[in-house]
């Protein structure tokens, strides 16, 4: 049984090879040395990384990495199908991401020690997010990028980890204060303002910067992260109430002040008013999903390239068109499985900072997938954000792998402690 399980977890590694074979049958010219080397390397990588991690890192969770490798191979074959140059680049990012993940695991002791300095983490995250305002370049209608030589990076992706670290350590250190409300503000029970002011300030600044940068996806994500973490520590519904009130006011304010927010909402409310103009993307996304149906059209048999920027925000619709409902359910289930494995790690932690951090990492990944998936399917207004491990993009891939590195390091640590 154990043997079979191990083999099953390696099956995802066959995906790139199969995809290349299908491509080759359609077009012989794809069989260049470079493409074949990358495909072979990808297959080997997706077998070797889960096996090696289990062999060399004691007590590491055995399911998370194979599941991540499945998402990465989905990403690779979709890039292969959409654009050959993206296939090469994405493979490079996956390799760098995995190296970074192992480095994170290796240096996890030192990195986790940073959790003792919540204000440094908070300040760093503000600086990282704010750096875009000073050094940033506008790409694709959002001021989210810093260009250094040939590289473009999206600092917001990396600030996710810093903010998570800040939230975990600040909330854990101040939970007694936050949990003992001694002020009645109407029906709300809140501690004195000074106890939760730093939280509100750092979080509020981050949110404002994102809205200013037109990075609505991250604004939504950061809002959700903070709510999630605060509730986990305090379970005080007053915070939730305040946050929701704040969210409504902020949304209304953004709607009135920022034209780009207004446009998003109008498109979401009635995409059929301007299906060939502003709502083109979301309408084509729905068409792609509907055309795919239950079974999908088959790999290479759909027309996902009709959707603009399909390789980042709408990669999910491309999967839905070619692999159908069955395919996208597999992807969604994978995210849920990773989430549940991560939550299991969080539950087993005795160190509350680690507990909160691993819970934050897992919840953030799932929340981020939800925001973009719900946007692609018109459940909520569309906000541009990447689908973890699948969308094309270096910053996103690297930061996700680093987060997973921390999570795996915590799992190894806690399992080790538990077995002592």
């Amino acid at each position, binding site marked *: 049984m154990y043997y079979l399980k191990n083999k099953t977890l390696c099956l995802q590694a066959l995906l790139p090879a199969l995809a290349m074979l299908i491509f080759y049958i359609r077009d012989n010219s794809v069989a260049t040395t470079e493409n074949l080397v990358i495909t072979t390397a990808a297959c080997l990588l997706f077998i070797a990384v889960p096996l090696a991690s289990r062999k060399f890192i004691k007590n590491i969770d055995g399911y998370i990495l194979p599941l991540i490798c499945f998402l990465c191979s989905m990403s690779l074959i979709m890039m292969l199908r959409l654009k050959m140059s993206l296939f090469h680049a994405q493979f490079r990012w996956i390799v760098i991401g995995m190296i970074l993940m192992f480095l994170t695991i290796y240096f996890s002791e030192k990195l986790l020690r940073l959790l003792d300095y919540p204000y440094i983490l908070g300040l760093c995250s503000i600086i990282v997010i704010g750096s875009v305002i000073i050094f940033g370049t506008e790409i694709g209608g959002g001021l989210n990028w810093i260009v250094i030589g040939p590289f473009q990076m999206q600092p917001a992706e990396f600030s996710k980890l810093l903010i998570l670290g800040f939230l975990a350590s600040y909330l854990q250190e101040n939970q007694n204060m936050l949990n003992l409300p001694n002020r009645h503000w109407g029906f709300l029970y809140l501690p004195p303002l000074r106890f939760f002011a730093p939280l509100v300030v750092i979080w509020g600044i981050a949110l404002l910067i994102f809205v200013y940068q037109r990075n609505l996806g991250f604004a939504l994500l950061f809002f959700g992260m903070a709510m999630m973490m605060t509730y*986990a520590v305090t379970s005080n519904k007053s915070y939730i109430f305040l946050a929701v009130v704040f969210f409504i006011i902020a949304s209304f304010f953004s709607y009135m002040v920022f034209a780009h927010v207004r446009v998003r909402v109008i498109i979401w409310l009635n995409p059929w008013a301007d299906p060939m103009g502003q709502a083109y993307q979301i309408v084509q996304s729905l*068409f792609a999903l509907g055309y795919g*149906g239950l079974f999908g059209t088959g790999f290479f048999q759909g027309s996902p390239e009709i959707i603009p920027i399909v390789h980042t925000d709408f990669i999910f619709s491309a999967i839905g068109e070619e692999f159908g409902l069955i395919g996208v359910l597999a992807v969604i289930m994978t995210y849920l499985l990773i989430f549940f494995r991560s939550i299991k790690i*969080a539950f087993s932690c005795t160190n509350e900072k680690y507990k909160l951090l691993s819970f934050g990492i897992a919840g953030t990944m*799932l929340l981020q997938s939800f925001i973009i998936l719900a946007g692609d399917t018109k459940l909520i207004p569309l906000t541009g954000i990447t689908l973890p491990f699948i969308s094309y993009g270096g910053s996103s891939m690297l930061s996700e792998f680093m987060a997973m590195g921390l999570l795996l390091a915590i799992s190894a640590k806690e399992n080790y402690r538990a077995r002592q």
Partner: protein
Amino acid sequence: MRDNDINRNMLRIVRVFIVMFVVLIGNLSYIQVIKGDSYTNNPLNPRIANKENSTLRGDILDRNNKKIAYSQKEENKVKRVYPYSMLFANSAGYVGKNIGSAGVEQTENSSLSGVNMLLHQLGPLEQLFAAEKGNTVKLTLDENIQKAAWDAMGNKRGAVVILNTKTGAVLAMVSRPAFDPNGVEENWQALRTDPQSPLLNRAAQGLYPPGSAIKPMIADAALEQGVINTTEKINCGPYYDLGNGQKIYEADKAVYGNINLEEGIIHSSNVMFAGLAVQMGDKGLENAFKRFGFYDELKTDFTQQNAHLSDFAKLSRGETAQVGIGQADLLISPLRMAMLASAFGNQGKMMKPYMVDEILSPGGTTLQKNSPAVFKEVTTQDRANTINSYMENEVLKGTGRNAAVKGITIAGKTGTAENSFGADHAWFIGTAQVKDEKISFAIILENSGFGGAEAAPVIKYVINTMLRED
């Protein structure tokens, strides 16, 4: 135990996540399964069009396998080519990206495009069955006959329909003026607004007063209802008095004296047929049109227009007489007139006309073959033969002389139809045995005068061309 508090809180958040994802998956299933078809068929969704474009459209062939329409790739762009230009414009039709399609291109689109949305339901398995090229549609039209009819019409407006009498297969369907389907997309605005309406398929959709060409049917009805027999003679000419000062004249105010029904057909006597119509009355005429299938819906593989018939219950005596000579407000398409002629040449059996002979796979396997069907038995064998012999004599020694071809049996009936748009329309309908094929035909030339002088020579030219073949 604060530790447990955090775990409890985390568990609550996990529940929220589960609810969120249940909603997400529910919505996704709704989009992909329930709304799938409606999104797929939405006109703004370019996917079906893309698919049709990536599949090479099938060929349209005439009955001798000459290509009437085919698609070819030119510098990554697929072009639809109509080698005969205007000749088949209104029968085979056209297909354009932004203007839709018409003719066989429209009615047989699902065969030609090779896109089958039923297969799409199979998901990736569709690829096992999908064709790289659409199916071939083989028509019953014959390029030689079509060309002959086109040439014979000259530059006149009008239509020619030629059917196989025994099967109903359409051998030629010409409508003029026509247009070049190769350039229809570029010239769309001009074609659409052209007062000559070149886009209208006059042969199957143009409605005209039948004039004297309706007389064989009136004669059949008169015999059936016993208002005349084959030997009875009627004094004809120069006019039929309707009372109150209204008169129906013979053509050229001729005087034929005492003539029988056969001579009435041969000379196309208006006086005789006005009288017969009045004798049969409104009910009798209505029954005749019913018996000849003019009230029946004709469902076939090309687009056609049903006849516009008089409201027989409300006709005045004068209008009843006018129905007898094919006027009043009767409007009938050339196709229906050719079918009428075919009934007399086919022992009273009117065959259902059809234009698609076979659907073939790109490899040449027959996927579907049309078989002839009787549309309606409209009269008895005896009466059909009697009327047909009258029509043969009309061509031998009557108004249809101009159609006569030596050694060929031709039965015909001329018509000269008054209309509100100018000079009379010239009609000629009938049947002819040409070698081993019996054809039925209807010719109309708009506003060009006498049927015998203008329309009859068209079929003579066509028959002569058919005889010269092989």
